[in-house]
């Protein structure tokens, strides 16, 4: 069964450094998402992406965050200058079309020191 894959599984970064989280969505999917889960808290929406542009973003997704689909397969989340509070599990998800569910990757655990 096709899967959403995320790399790396764990990323440790110094505060203030840039980090890029990578995702390969399911190949025929058109809608892409990033979510995050701070330890002990619920999963929160960050951003959705369709047709090569952001379709919606949350208040969390400020100017430090950006997303890109650099080629036909990858979908990346960049945090330009990381803060301690960015430490979380980041999940990528993709969806084929309307009335289809989102499928999630296994996540990248981001630890900011």
């Amino acid at each position, binding site marked *: 069964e096709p899967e959403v894959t995320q790399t790396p599984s764990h990323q440790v970064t110094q505060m203030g450094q840039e980090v890029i989280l990578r995702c390969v969505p399911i190949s025929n999917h058109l809608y892409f998402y990033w979510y995050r889960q701070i330890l002990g*808290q619920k999963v929160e929406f960050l951003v959705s992406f369709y047709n090569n542009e952001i379709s919606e973003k949350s208040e969390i997704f400020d100017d430090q965050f950006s997303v890109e689909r650099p080629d036909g397969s990858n979908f990346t989340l960049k945090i330009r200058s990381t803060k301690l509070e960015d430490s979380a599990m980041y999940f990528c*998800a993709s969806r084929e079309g309307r009335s289809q569910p989102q499928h*999630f990757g296994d996540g990248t655990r981001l630890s900011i020191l």
Partner: protein
Amino acid sequence: AQSVTQPDIHITVSEGASLELRCNYSYGATPYLFWYVQSPGQGLQLLLKYFSGDTLVQGIKGFEAEFKRSQSSFNLRKPSVHWSDAAEYFCAVVPLDNTDKLIFGTGTRLQVFP
């Protein structure tokens, strides 16, 4: 306020016992409804979904959920729990008010005793 509520933070059951995990939502129109499961160190796996139609939906791993419009609920059930069902369970909705983002509940941690 619009929200998804999972009132049980932690549930413990014996293996072989039945299970019901509660989920309530507060949105004006009936949203799309989902249950996801997260095993330790793993991602979110879709158990089942409700978009419309039959209010009792079947999912993977022997789970089912029933949508009750009058109660704004979408409770997850399993008649006989296995030790491998121990995990965190998340109810989620897509509110359908010009958004397709998932709104998650706080999750219910299921512990299974032999």
